[in-house]
């Protein structure tokens, strides 16, 4: 419709600025549905979070009222938040480095195109295809009291070590971390492989002439070249682990046993839906959001290109 308004004469670069501008205005209308849709359904709720975070709101059906900074003061001496903060830190501190370093080396390895690399690539895609709920059910079954791991232990005569991995206070968090690594390593590795394949063979060849082994080629040649990409993937993995733990915890442990696997993201969900204190849940959500941004800034600094 708007196309009619535009002059059919195509504006030449430099010539007729005004005409170019009206032409642009007609064009930009094409983008409006998408932008409005996007702002309404994703940016809007995000902004609303900042309002709800300062409300006293018992449940979705209950009346809401502002209570100033009460939620924030409450948060500061809430044991559960402190525990969740600690759990989140442990979860991130172990899984993030392992996934990033492991995936980078996996990517380098796949890129060597050794025999079998095709089938390995296909296998590495598996976690990217499985839904969260299927992954959750799979691991509840694998790690359950009579699940795959315990059956396997039984078969090799180590049945005494069998335990309900997800319900055991010592093993619940390590299990969650292992599942996180399991699901993150493969696809990130393939992404690194794709990026590393863009590196010219000549560069490796030159390093080889200098007697570099794989370890050195990986960290002294490939890594510096792809450093910025490493940073971007680290950011994404950081965000995914920080926020994504909610769904995984919901399916695997529901924060238990006790508070052993209660992460911040889980608390947002828990206070939002299980023991509803909607306002408070969003205050924690705000903390999570700030942690996300702070983390991004730090990761960006660390991986800034140094030429």
């Amino acid at each position, binding site marked *: 419709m708007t196309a009619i308004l535009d002059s059919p004469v*195509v504006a030449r670069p430099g010539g007729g600025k005004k005409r*170019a501008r009206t032409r*642009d*205005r007609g*064009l*930009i209308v*094409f*983008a409006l549905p*998408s*932008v409005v849709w*996007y*702002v309404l*359904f*994703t*940016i809007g*709720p*995000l902004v*609303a*979070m900042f309002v*709800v975070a300062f409300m006293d709101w018992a449940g*979705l059906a209950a009346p809401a009222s502002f209570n100033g900074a009460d939620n924030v003061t409450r948060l500061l001496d809430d044991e559960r938040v402190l525990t969740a903060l600690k759990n989140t830190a442990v979860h991130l501190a172990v899984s993030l480095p392992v996934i990033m370093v492991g995936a980078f080396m996996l990517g380098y*390895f796949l890129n*060597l195109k050794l025999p079998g690399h095709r089938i*390995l690539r296909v*296998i590495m*895609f598996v976690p990217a*295809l499985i*839904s969260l*709920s*299927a992954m959750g*059910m*799979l691991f*509840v*079954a*694998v790690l359950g009291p*009579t*699940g*795959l791991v315990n059956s396997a232990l039984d078969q090799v005569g180590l049945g005494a070590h069998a335990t*309900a991995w997800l*319900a055991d206070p010592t093993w619940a968090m390590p299990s969650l971390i292992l599942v996180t690594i*399991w699901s993150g*390593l*493969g696809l990130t590795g393939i*992404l690194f492989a*794709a990026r590393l394949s863009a590196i010219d*063979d000549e560069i490796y060849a030159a390093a080889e002439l200098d*007697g570099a*082994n*794989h*370890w050195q080629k990986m960290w002294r040649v490939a890594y510096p070249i792809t450093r910025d990409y490493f940073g971007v993937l680290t950011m*994404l993995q950081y965000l995914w682990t*920080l*926020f*994504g733990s*909610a*769904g995984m915890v919901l*399916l695997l442990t529901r924060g238990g046993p006790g508070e052993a696997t209660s992460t911040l993201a889980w608390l947002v969900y828990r206070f*939002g839906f299980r023991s509803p204190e909607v306002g408070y849940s969003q205050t924690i959500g705000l903390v999570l959001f700030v942690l*996300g941004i702070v983390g*991004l800034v730090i990761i960006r600094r660390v991986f800034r290109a140094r030429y």
Partner: protein
Amino acid sequence: MAVATSTTVDNQPARPVVRAPRRKRPSRFTPGLVGSYALVLVYAATLVLPLYWLFISAFKSQLDAVDAPFAPTFSSGFDNLTRVWDLLNLGDAMLNSLYITAASLAVTLVIAIPAAYALARSQGRIATVFERIYALGFLIPGFAALVPTLLLAIQLDLFHTREFMILYLPASAQPLAVILLTQFMRTVPQELEESATIDGAGRFRVLRSIYLPLTMPGIATISILNFISFWNDYLYTLVIVGANAKVRTVQVALPTLQGNQGITDYALVCAGTLISVLPVFVVYAVLNRRMESALVQGALKG
């Protein structure tokens, strides 16, 4: 994953610089490389073994699943599959998943394609602002706004409906879809559009007959990516559509197998999980290469 610090170097320092035709495959297996290979195989095994176990457990009796975990006994045939299908009402769940996925995908494409066209061809300031807004979207993980999104659903009187997901999912998919497609649209030569315009074609016509056919690979890519993420969506669908058997999706139905006491019937859970992952794996089997490249391109998704 501490790969053995491969101390051994393929160390032939004084190798005469005879430029032998470079071999494509470095066949020199150093101990470090062999060690790494072993570690990669271990990881691959942790990916494959649970799936193998899942598959065979789906076809055996509850007893066998515990007593003979690795033997493919097929002792109960398709019993578990039909039992879980009826128990969870998976027929309806599949249709609900299909409805939400297909409708969301259609909406996503209908609004993203013109937007990408506009951003690719506009030189104005507004286009730059729009692009910034989308770029911001990469950094906002969906989970962050779960509760306020639910409030929005209530406001719109669409709580516990599938239709709200059909509004929400396309919105969440816009940043990736538009940015990826814009890159594809930029590769279309502008001269094509100019000559069509001179022949009197309007913008819709140009978009439909020039850009659409030429950017099909990009459209395929975002369709595949969004098919996976819409079909697999769990948390939002759980919270907004809910677990009512009439409207719930496969992903929401499946975890209801786990009661408060955890799992009691492993074979049944394995059968349910198998059914839920099957559609995506079937599509993967058909579109394998295309899907792989789509996932790699879409990696920037938050």
